[in-house]
């Protein structure tokens, strides 16, 4: 019996998120809010509307919140998004499938490789091709390293938001270590465009094994420093425990995924439950919480770093040889060396990079477990070299809906802890 079945009856009550009226979600447009300012408050009405963001140091970018406050207590709230709307889905329709990874990687900029992975998997589903084994394992390796760097980013910003500034310095220092490895493998610190339809952009560089071993040897001790600094600390616990509680039934109703869902004790991870890549060939634990509060989410993300390190070590041992991209002439450009010798190879190379390759008509959805939850990619192809429609299902976008429910009847100071524990990346929310 899986935990999902076992938990069945203890999901909790989701009536709070189903209420239309009397709901903690403030459903008010900006025009209405602006008009409200002209109306004098009725006697005895001490409620007020407070605007938080979009330029606020604790809103992780450009999230804006409209908060209805009664003194220091938040009654209703509304997350206002769209301040980083980039039109990526529209731009994606003008780029070929090869260029598409460049576009989507800029969505969730804390974990760019997952965007590329979801996009590539959707394209490969449409093409009905299988990537070589080595490419699969390289993708897994990069995903897990990216999960580590993303969660380290969370530890840094979460610490900063809570006033534990040293956590930020520790987090950035560790993140630099993983970024250096990324830079060596992909050539860039962020927005790699490394995972592409058909495989990955380049093979792992010489000496990657030593670099990786150095990282996996050094990181565990440094991650333990977070435990020393934060986990047992009374102020830290006081600040996070019992704050921002959500139960499993509410998570399911609202479509929440990732550490948010797992913090409620609901055992669901796409990597294990609907395996993609080669996650069914490695061993790892899915971490779940108990109370569904900010502390559980902090602890889950911290421990997922350790779990990912465990995965990286296994991948290191099992990394197969072979090709790093599919040898399908339709999808893959010829090797660089052949371009110098063969005119046909040059033309082939030129055509793939200017016209792109054609993808058969149809539609497909592919999903991966990003550090924030289920990251999906839905592509409709009309048989041409560019997607007819490209849609990314960003976990942060859906996860943000829980904010009003978590914030209802909490103090203003706790809103910062709650936003931080949801860990939204606005690039992915607004796309």
């Amino acid at each position, binding site marked *: 019996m899986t935990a999902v079945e076992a938990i069945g009856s203890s999901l909790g009550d989701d009536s709070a998120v189903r209420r239309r009226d009397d*709901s903690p979600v403030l459903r008010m447009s900006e025009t209405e809010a602006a008009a409200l300012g002209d109306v004098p408050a009725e006697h005895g009405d001490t409620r007020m509307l407070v605007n938080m963001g979009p330029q606020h140091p604790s809103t992780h970018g450009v999230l804006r919140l409209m908060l209805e406050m009664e003194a220091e207590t938040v009654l209703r709230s509304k997350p206002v998004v*769209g301040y980083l709307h980039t039109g990526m889905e*529209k731009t994606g329709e003008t780029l070929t499938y090869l260029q598409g990874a460049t576009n989507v990687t800029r969505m969730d900029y804390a974990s760019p490789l997952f965007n590329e992975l979801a996009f590539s998997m959707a394209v490969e589903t449409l093409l009905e091709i299988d990537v070589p084994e080595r490419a699969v394992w390289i993708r897994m390796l990069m995903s897990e390293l990216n999960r580590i760097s993303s969660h380290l980013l969370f530890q840094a910003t979460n610490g900063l938001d809570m006033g534990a500034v040293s956590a930020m310095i520790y987090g950035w220092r560790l993140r630099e270590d993983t970024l250096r490895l990324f830079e060596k493998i992909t050539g860039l610190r962020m927005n790699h465009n490394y995972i592409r339809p058909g495989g990955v952009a380049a093979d792992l560089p010489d000496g990657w094994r030593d670099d990786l071993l150095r990282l996996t040897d050094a990181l565990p001790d440094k991650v333990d420093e977070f435990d020393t600094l934060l986990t047992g600390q009374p102020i830290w616990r006081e600040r996070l425990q019992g704050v921002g509680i959500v139960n499993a039934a509410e998570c399911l*109703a609202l*479509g929440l995924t990732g550490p948010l869902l797992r913090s409620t004790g609901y055992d669901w991870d796409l990597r294990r439950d609907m395996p993609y890549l080669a996650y069914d060939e490695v061993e790892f634990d899915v971490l779940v919480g108990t109370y569904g509060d900010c502390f559980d989410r902090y602890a889950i993300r911290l421990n997922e770093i350790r779990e990912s390190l465990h995965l990286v070590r296994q991948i290191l041992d099992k990394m197969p040889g072979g090709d790093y991209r599919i040898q399908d002439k339709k999808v893959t450009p010829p090797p660089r060396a052949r371009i110098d010798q063969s005119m046909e190879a040059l033309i082939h190379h030129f055509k793939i990079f200017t016209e792109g390759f054609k993808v058969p008509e149809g*539609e497909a959805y592919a999903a991966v477990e990003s550090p924030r939850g289920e990251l999906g990619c839905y592509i409709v192809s009309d048989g041409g070299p560019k997607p007819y*429609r490209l*849609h990314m*299902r960003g976990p942060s976008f859906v996860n943000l809906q829980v904010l009003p429910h978590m914030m209802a009847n909490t103090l203003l100071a706790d809103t910062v802890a709650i936003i931080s524990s949801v860990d939204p990346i606005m690039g992915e929310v607004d796309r």
Partner: protein
Amino acid sequence: MTDESSDEEEQAEATAPESVHGAPVTSSRGQKVLHPDRDSYVEVVGALRADGYVMCVDVTAVDYLLDPARDLPPGVEPQRFEVVTSLINHAERSRVRIRVQVPDDDPVLPTLFDEYPGTEAMERETYDMFGIVFDGHPDMSRILMPEDWEGHPLRKDYGVGTVPVQFKAPEART
């Protein structure tokens, strides 16, 4: 669970095309796709929820203005818009996608808010980007674009808005 027994009978009766809760089923690259009509949309989703599809993962739309040809089962009339809803069943580890045809002249679809409150933001996004109105939605307003924006950007008759790149020598600053 009265639905299940009637559903089994239905499945036994219908040989081809297959149907689930009265909606024709197709397979797209091995992924299960349901094609209910607009009137039975909420009903089908409700029945699927009772079947264990506990979470609505995604709601989006496609504008088929420029490419009306698509893979549809017989009996389903293609329309300009298509709303695509993805559900997931955690116990059976399965997904199902629901594609509903929405005509251009009446782009209205009932909301899924009562089944899955989490569709609120996704339906708002679909409204913002395609102008498809979800009937009964608690807050049908723009979410990504400014409130006073005109047009729905992801429609195919809305341009990408590309500005030709211009180069100009910088003027001397004071």
